[in-house]
């Protein structure tokens, strides 16, 4: 890196000087040589002018039109995600109905077998539990509907059990229907999620 005043420095040093590299501008011997040597001063000046010209090179118009955006999400995609969003609430509603229906069916079966007396109290108990369980786990609006329906039916059933045996035939019909509807919803949700949607996506 020493500069013999009679010898030209390496051209790469002149290039560093031309761009104002602090390490080169702090090199006193280099500066002194360039100040006294026409050849090197011309090189530095030309390299500096070259840099200026390079930094002003114009932009270039692409030879063909380019796509500015990736394709917008298709409407089909939107429907798919809507269906995907329905999966959890439908499954939850189905499970709640099935559990309520199952418990109800079992209860009315018991009350049908028992003529009267102690049976109503036993039946009322699971129906209330069911109301508490579904009240705790209602995640979405349609789960709400199922919860309300389940509880109304359950309290209706409990009240009727508490009153008179003649209501028993109605319960025998209603609870299995609720159970069946719940199972259909669960099955529907599962088919939608694992059979229909994967192909749509």
């Amino acid at each position: 890196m020493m500069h013999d005043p009679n010898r030209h420095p390496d051209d790469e040093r002149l290039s560093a000087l031309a761009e104002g590299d602090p390490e080169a501008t702090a090199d006193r011997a280099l500066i002194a040589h360039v100040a006294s040597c026409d050849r090197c001063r011309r090189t530095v000046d030309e390299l500096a002018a070259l840099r200026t010209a390079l930094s002003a090179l114009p932009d270039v118009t692409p030879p063909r039109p380019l796509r500015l955006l990736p394709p917008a999400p298709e409407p089909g995609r939107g429907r798919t995600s809507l269906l995907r969003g329905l999966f959890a609430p439908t499954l939850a509603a189905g499970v709640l109905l099935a559990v309520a229906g199952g418990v109800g069916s079992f209860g009315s079966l018991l009350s049908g077998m028992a003529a009267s007396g102690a049976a109503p109290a036993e039946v009322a108990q699971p129906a209330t539990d069911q109301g508490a369980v579904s009240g705790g786990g209602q995640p979405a609006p349609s789960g709400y509907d199922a919860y309300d329906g389940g509880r109304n039916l359950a309290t209706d059933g409990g009240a009727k059990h508490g009153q008179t045996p003649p209501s028993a035939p109605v319960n025998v019909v209603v609870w299995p229907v609720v159970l069946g509807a719940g199972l259909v919803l669960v099955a529907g949700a599962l088919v939608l999620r694992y059979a229909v949607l994967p192909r749509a996506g």
Partner: protein
Amino acid sequence: MPEPQPAATRRTAPLPDEEALVARAVAGDRGAFARLVEHYQSACYGLAWRLLNDAEMAADATQDAFVHAFDAIDRYRGGAFRSWMLRITANAAYDILRRAQRRPTQALPDPAEGEAELADHGLPAPSDEAARGEMYRHLDAALRLLPEDQRTAVVLADVYGMDYHQVASLTSSALGTVKSRIHRGRLRLRELLAEQRELFRP
């Protein structure tokens, strides 16, 4: 003219409402993103074309850069949008360059042929504007004659103003290597342009 000259435009200035557009694009506004990208497409294409030395590959790289930019816009962290787009474009161009280098058929341009072409350009036209255009065409023609490592270093640093650390990381090279390529590239350009010296008068 022995080969089609690229359609040159002046350097793209930032849009007057650029900050607001960028904020909207970051928030997911597709229209704002499209406007920004359209505005800077010739800046991006110019960089890709100068890095790759090939119009078709450069258009592909620019297109890839738009897709990458769209995917990354929500991680944009301020700074000049043009610089951000140019970094993404340089990366996309490098991906294409590496893929092309794996194919052995890719031939380097013959420097002797190019030098003849450079000499053919003739004298500058009288007006300043035309002389500048002439100078830029000489400059691009000379850049195309540099060895690839020198050309890419000079293009990134001197044409597009990236700092040497950015150049080193984009080209996966050591800092000292980058500096040496830039110096050697400039000196070679100066030799190639010796006959057009009057165009580069300081």
